[in-house]
């Protein structure tokens, strides 16, 4: 393998990792606030793929993208209000089962509405334009994904550490009762969390599917599961952890594929998960917590 091929593969891996990271943030933030693993998150990501297909059918890409993101955010918030909010005081297990239910609902709804056949993902010409650096060539989306991911994460961290809403989110993630005594409206904070999570899943979906070219009703389940693993690897609840986890999985998977072991690329994710859970169950950046499902 020449140097340029290695760089090429790394680039692809980093790009895939960026998309994973964006989705993993959604898992980790919702977990941080609600202590809920939002199993529907991968399917929100899949629905975002369909939204883009339909938006692009009638609008140019620069209008279609905001529409897609808006629809994805709306979907995420509605799911929270309908499926999770009524269970706020229920045992943790009930709300998790509700999340699994929503996941199946979305998959079957997509199958019913759009059929199980893969639908072609629209091409955004700007993103697909090929750039060449020496022997390394890739489409713009490959370069943009990791950069955009890092920029979004920096913005998100600023938001969480330096705004009033961010302060409220940190408070709610630690202590519901005391946060309420401070005058924080828990439900607003939770909605806000779902807005951010879904928005990032929407952006991740555009970047991911532009590279994959097709969407089908189960497109969200394996990437969703992998991004959940990424969040666990990094330490669930930690945003930098989710990002690092996403990049590790993306790069690892791509390198395995490049080395000719593509059969094992999915298994790699889960082997990594098992190893992590055996030796460091709280993840790379995870805090010690005894209270988990």
């Amino acid at each position: 393998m020449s140097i340029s091929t290695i760089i090429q593969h790394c680039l692809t891996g980093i790009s895939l990792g960026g998309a994973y990271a964006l989705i993993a943030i959604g898992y980790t933030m919702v977990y941080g606030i609600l202590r809920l693993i939002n199993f529907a998150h991968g399917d929100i990501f899949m629905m975002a793929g369909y939204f883009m297909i339909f938006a692009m059918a009638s609008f140019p890409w620069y209008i279609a993208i905001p529409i897609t993101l808006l629809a994805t955010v709306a979907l995420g918030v509605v799911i929270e209000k309908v499926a999770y909010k009524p269970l706020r005081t229920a045992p943790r297990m009930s709300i998790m089962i509700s999340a699994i239910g929503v996941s199946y609902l979305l998959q079957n709804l997509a199958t019913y509405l759009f059929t199980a056949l893969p639908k072609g993902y629209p091409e955004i010409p700007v993103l697909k334009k090929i750039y060449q650096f020496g022997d390394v060539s890739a489409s713009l989306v490959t370069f943009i994904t990791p950069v955009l991911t890092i920029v979004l994460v920096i913005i998100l961290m600023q938001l969480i550490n330096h705004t009033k809403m961010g302060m409220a989110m940190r408070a709610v993630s630690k202590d519901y009762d005391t946060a309420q005594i401070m005058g924080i409206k828990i439900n607003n904070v939770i909605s806000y969390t779902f807005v951010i999570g879904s928005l990032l899943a929407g952006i991740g979906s555009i970047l991911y599917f532009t590279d994959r070219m097709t969407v089908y009703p189960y497109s969200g389940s394996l990437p969703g599961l992998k991004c959940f693993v990424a969040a666990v690897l990094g330490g669930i609840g930690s945003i930098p952890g989710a990002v690092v986890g996403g990049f590790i999985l993306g790069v690892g998977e791509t390198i395995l594929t490049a080395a000719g072991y593509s059969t094992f690329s999915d298994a790699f994710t889960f082997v990594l998960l098992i190893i992590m859970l055996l030796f460091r169950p709280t993840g790379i950046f995870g805090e010690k917590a005894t209270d988990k499902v």
Partner: protein
Amino acid sequence: MLKIDNLSVNYGGIKAVRNVSFEVPDGKIVTLIGANGAGKSTILRTITGLVHAASGSITYDGEELTKLPTHTIVTKGITLVPEGRHVFPDMTVLENLKIGAYLRKDNLNDDIEWVYSLFPRLKERNWQQAGTLSGGEQQMLAVGRALMSRPKLIMMDEPSLGLAPIIVKEIFNIIKEINKRGVTILLIEQNANMALHIADLAYVLETGTIALHGTGQELLANEKVKELYLGKGK
């Protein structure tokens, strides 16, 4: 004035509070004393809306609070210093104070300075994470955080819990100081001796009901209180 009328609360399947009535007049220090499990904390949690009343009413300046959510109740000028302090451990001292003023939109500098003048030790630890403070410092921070909302009524749940006597004294002096500024105090204590000494009015809670009440001085002199709560029985 905060008025509790015939309040009953169920908590974890048991009747934790039964037909309790008492008043907290403006500008006073009122204390509720009683043994562990007498229902003291439950009453405070019910006033703040964290727990819901089974029956009875809680009014503040004539306004019914029992059906309101916590984040609305605190806008009325009521706040709670919870038992066990519950400062936000990952936030700095300054951030904890700022979050205490979450509902305010005006400038906080004067209030922060005031809290730091009450608790100079917090000022030294301005940038330290609250979780790394000692128990006494955390209690000071919890009180300071409550002051940041400019409350009319502060409820304190066991502020002396687990603290060294000298720190307890300091905290109680601050409570008096805050009260002198016109803030009403509703204090829950197991340290009945300290609480009765600073209280204008006192109520003794026994297994969910009010057993005795009077001024702080009256209860200090009461034989039954002496025996059961002050450890000065014959």
